[in-house]
């Protein structure tokens, strides 16, 4: 095992974890404050990626695409909340599952109608297309470093927003005790809409940043949605700090596991068994992580509700 490999994989895990955090933050806020299970969250991630890719290609500027795409997705999120999702807040979780699943289907199909079934390209900014030498012998793609940078920046922004602003105070109050927040005069409707739109923007950032690495295609939201749910369960529902820690844990464990487990199995068993068992065990690692966390802390690591 290589020291360089470890650093590389750790950076990959950090990068993936930070992007997961962007998705999980929005999801945990919506679940924690509005008590709503939102299966369409992954759709916002997908829509964000598509918008960013399209605008970036049209304007030949990744940054313009990112900016405009994020704004566009936030707007779409806002419209979605005001028109449909608002009606689901009062309903039970199962109704929310059905309703948001319906939106998921319609989003997928709408995207397919506009952009077709084939993945569309999203290229990283030219200036960052190549590797950077971090240490002698350690080259790391500049773009991935950007992702880490963006992720950390957004995390910091969120920290300031949640702990230092009035909006953040309302959000924390709402997550801890909705009725109390209501009785303290928080304009709940506007708060909910703002939280939702904000969550949509975060999804779009993640979609745009990960787009060049993973494919921008219909259905990209579903696979990452499951991971986001695992993250917020590990982190504790309603807690942004939990979403961050959970996301980093999941990102590192998943990335690390996929490298280590097959290697480990290669030492311990025959190449055939290792080849088939390795990836399988690596895939279930995050579920084992989740089960382990829940065993010790049944409400997740940092439950927002007392």
């Amino acid at each position, binding site marked *: 095992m290589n020291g360089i490999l470890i650093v590389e994989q750790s950076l990959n895990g950090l990068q993936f974890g930070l992007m997961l955090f962007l998705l999980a933050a929005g999801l945990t806020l919506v679940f924690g404050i509005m008590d709503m299970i939102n299966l369409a969250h992954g759709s916002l991630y997908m829509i964000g990626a598509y918008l960013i890719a399209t605008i970036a290609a049209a304007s030949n500027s990744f940054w313009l695409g990112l900016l405009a795409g994020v704004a566009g997705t936030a707007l779409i999120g806002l419209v979605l909340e005001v028109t449909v999702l608002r009606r689901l807040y009062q309903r039970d979780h199962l109704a929310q*599952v*059905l309703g948001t699943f319906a939106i998921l289907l319609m989003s997928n199909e*709408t995207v397919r109608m506009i952009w077709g079934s084939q993945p569309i390209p999203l290229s990283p900014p030219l200036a960052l297309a190549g590797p950077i030498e971090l240490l002698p012998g350690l080259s790391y793609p500049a773009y991935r470093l950007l992702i880490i940078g963006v992720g950390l920046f957004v995390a910091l922004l969120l920290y300031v927003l949640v702990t230092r602003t009035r909006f953040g105070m309302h959000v924390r109050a709402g997550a801890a005790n909705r009725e109390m927040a209501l009785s303290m005069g928080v304009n709940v409707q506007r708060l909910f809409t703002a939280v939702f739109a904000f969550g949509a923007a975060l999804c779009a950032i993640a979609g745009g940043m990960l787009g060049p690495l993973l494919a921008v295609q219909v259905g990209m939201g579903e696979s990452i949605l499951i991971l986001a749910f695992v993250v917020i*369960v590990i982190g504790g529902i309603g807690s942004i700090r939990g979403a961050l820690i959970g996301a980093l844990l999941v990102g590192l464990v998943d990335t690390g596991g996929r490298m280590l487990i097959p290697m480990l199995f290669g030492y311990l068993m025959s190449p055939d068994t290792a080849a088939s068992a390795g990836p399988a065990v690596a895939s279930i690692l995050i579920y084992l992580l989740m089960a382990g966390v829940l065993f010790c802390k049944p409400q997740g690591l940092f439950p927002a509700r007392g």
Partner: protein
Amino acid sequence: MTRIASGAHLVARPIEAERAAERVGGLLDHSLLSRASLPLLVLLAALPAVAGAFNETFYVGVASRILIFALAATSLNLILGFGGMVSFGHAAFVGIGAYAVGILMNAGVATAWIAWPVAMLASALFALLIGAVSLRTKGVYFIMITLAFAQMLYYLMVSLKAYGGEDGLSLSARSSLGLGLDLGSEATFYYVVLLLVMATIVVVQRLLNARFGHALQAIRENEARMAAIGFPVYRHKLIAFTVAGAMAGLAGALLANQSGFVSPALLQWSQSGMLMIMVILGGVGQLYGGVAGAVVFLLLEEVLAARTIHWQFGLGAALLAVVLLAPNGLMGLRRKRGAQ
């Protein structure tokens, strides 16, 4: 030790007692709705003949598939709708049943009389083990733990190259039933499926209206209070979970026969999600909720897919309409229409 006198001694006046008997059951009892279901059953029984007359036997296979999912959805409704246990890993039990049949078939055991009970037993066993652990948790954590277990089983089947891995297994033929019946004939297979679905509905109905079912539904209503009046809640839930698992296994066995193919995709979380959607659509906690949901969902899929390539949009729109307009699912609309 003095015990409180039995209520019978303290007598309700006779009139009260009679009125009492009429009012019993309420939310806890479920009717087979024979006035509507029997005619529908006749129609369903006539389907192969009608299809044959129009030379469209393909639709008999479609109908079989829909009925099999109706069975799977009903098994989920048992724990989700009636027991209040939102399991996000139910497709795993369907998949296990399917694999049991597929593996036995490839090992030379083709008779349904062994393969199908084995499928049910295998699924029941996994349900017992998974339930024993998962039912210690509640709420969203229960949902995620059941999901986690299902995902583990999914990845397990993907990694087992001996059983086809990601590509899955093909079945050389359908299970053999003997008795002069050939399940290879679509019509025969359809009738067997229809019979099994009918039997399952009757079993579920009897179960729900019996003491066990009353207790299960009451646990859904107020679990803490049930423990406080003396019910072993965990035991009830585990029994229900295991029975539902067995039923799902039967659905899996039939599915393997219907498609002639088993693959890990059957155990994916998206399949569990689809089953949940069917139950919610049809009506959580309604006897025919699973059936109604599966039928409407899959029929919509078929009908829309034939008319437009963008059928998923129509399906989504239809589901959204149901959520907003029919708060208790499709079967829940029945109460509104029935006046009273």
